[in-house]
């Protein structure tokens, strides 16, 4: 595979990325994404490295969700391409794409009468033909997904009886049952209590560690992203501001430029950055 330049940002931010990424699960080049006339994301080059957890961070309106829509072929770019495993996502059939790339939306809705197991079973949809009954593989995948999400005890519970956090875990299990190599998650921890935020992030880590799934997750909370992701992509106004391991990306400069926050960034002995926000900048 030819060497892919890691990133070329339009901004003058120094980008001396160190870790070589020789394999891109998702590679977006020169994409412009928008709704109608308005261009929301304009990104020259974006790599979601294979087998890693990458977090997309940025302030509200920076184009995180839109970028995710572009990566999952939900939104057709005005120009540019998005390659999944070297093949354009828009050239793949919807079901082919769904077998390789999972996407979990920020807000999910399902009939309240559905049990957790029913919901997770829907994750097998792309793997089943029109008339196919569930196969042994399907059952195994469903069991694995429920197990991984840690909601075995809720299997028979109706969604209406679950808390917000439990519901989110159930939806994540559905996406896991899809058994894809790449998983995109749009703000999976927003609106959850701290316990469930951590549960969700731990599931993502386990998924990555044990099954080598590439994860790209939009996160609101920069500190959380720093803790759980191996790579950060910081977006500002629809373009990539910086890209790399958290300890390099998260700087006081970034917080000021992108998030409009005056903060101090301290590094603990392991090198992990800790953000202490001071006040909002004008």
């Amino acid at each position, binding site marked *: 595979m030819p060497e892919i330049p890691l990133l070329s940002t339009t901004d003058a931010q120094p980008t001396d990325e160190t870790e070589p990424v020789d394999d891109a699960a998702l590679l977006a080049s020169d994409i412009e994404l928008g709704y109608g006339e308005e261009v929301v994301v304009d990104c020259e080059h974006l790599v979601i490295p294979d087998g890693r957890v990458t977090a997309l961070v940025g302030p509200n309106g920076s184009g995180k969700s839109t970028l995710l829509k572009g990566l999952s072929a939900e939104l057709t770019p005005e120009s540019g391409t998005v390659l999944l495993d070297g093949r354009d996502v828009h050239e793949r059939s919807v079901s*082919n794409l769904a077998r390789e790339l999972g996407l979990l939306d920020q807000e999910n809705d399902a*009939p309240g*009468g559905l049990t957790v197991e029913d919901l997770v079973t829907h994750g097998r949809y*792309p793997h089943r033909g029109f*008339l196919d009954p*569930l196969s042994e593989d399907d059952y195994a995948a469903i069991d694995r997904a429920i197990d991984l999400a840690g909601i075995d005890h809720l299997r028979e519970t109706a969604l209406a009886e679950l808390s917000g956090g439990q519901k989110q875990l159930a939806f994540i299990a559905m996406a896991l049952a899809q058994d894809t190599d790449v998983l995109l998650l749009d703000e999976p921890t927003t609106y959850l209590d701290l316990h469930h935020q951590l549960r969700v992030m731990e599931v993502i880590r386990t998924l990555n560690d044990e099954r080598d799934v590439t994860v790209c997750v939009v996160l609101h909370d920069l500190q959380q992203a720093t803790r759980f992701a191996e790579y950060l992509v910081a977006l500002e106004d629809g373009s990539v501001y910086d890209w790399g391991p958290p300890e390099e990306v998260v700087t006081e400069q970034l917080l000021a430029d992108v998030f409009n926050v005056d903060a101090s960034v301290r590094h603990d002995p392991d090198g992990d950055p800790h953000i202490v926000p001071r006040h909002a900048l004008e």
Partner: protein
Amino acid sequence: MSRRRRVHDALAPDLDATLASIIGASILLTVVAGLVQVRYGAYEMPLETAVRALLDRAVWTNPSVLATLILGERGAATLGLSADLGVLSNPTIIVWTSRLPRVLVAAFVGLNLAVSGAVFQAITRNELASPYILGVSSGAGVAVVFTLLFSLGAYLLPLAAVVGGTAAFLLVYAVAWRGGTTPVRLVLAGVVVGTIFNSLQTGLFYFIDSNGVMRTAVAWLAGSLTGVGWPEVRVVAVPTLLVVPAALVSARQLDVLLLGERAARSLGMRVEHMRFGLSALAIVAASAAVAVAGLVGFVGLVVPHVVRTFVGSDYRQLMAGCLFAGPALVVVADVFARLALPGTQVPVGVVTGLLGGPYFLLLLRRTDSFTEF
């Protein structure tokens, strides 16, 4: 649990206790109402005679008699099975040529409307959707009144209804389409197209000057089973043979569609194709019912709703329930339509409204939320 799941295949929904009792109760209701319908009427006969007529050996052991009854003389003749029905006793003739087919038509109409309503409720993600939500009723209504007004021939009425309904549906889809559709746009387009067609229909009514034609038109628009026989059974049975398996197979697609468009898409469903295909199925089912009974209201709205309150929103169970509960409602309603008022019959659509309406109100008062979806 998963072991139990393992033994059934895609076409056989979990037959849990609730679903089984709904199906059982529906069958019981249908049979009892059917017997009442077969026994009572202008020609009086005791129940025993009616049952004997139903089980008449002269019919069941004689394929050519059975074929002549069901397929009509010409249909049977093409199979080389024609028989002279004069050999049958009077009760048998009455039961087999007039009362039984009416029960069958009622059952088929109920089934199709219930399935159609269930599908539309999922497609539009709206529990108040009915088979007529995408303009079918108003399109069919205009076509029917038009046909009657210009005396194009009564035998054309079923065809006119189907063509009108389908045309309205396609128009609704075209209006709602802007690089794709959404449930909300479909429903809005349905309301708008429906309003226009209803005005047209009312306008056409104004030009009807014969009382008889007016009566026929009203019966059609209200939904009536007066005078139906084996020809109507044949008309409605053929599409039903397609609708039933298609409905059962579609259940899983509907379940996934209910997760929302984006979720369905990310699970690999081609949402627009699927939605159009499922709408077409629902239109076929609704048209089959409209063609033989006119615009019977409320069934398609209330039956899926009732079944849902018992089995939940799992469409594999809901569909199976609708296949039995739909017939039960219409067969029972038709008993009232035909026998409640001595000497005259009311359109069955009026009765379904009168039976279904109060039930719906009761439901509305007893249920906390209608947001099952």
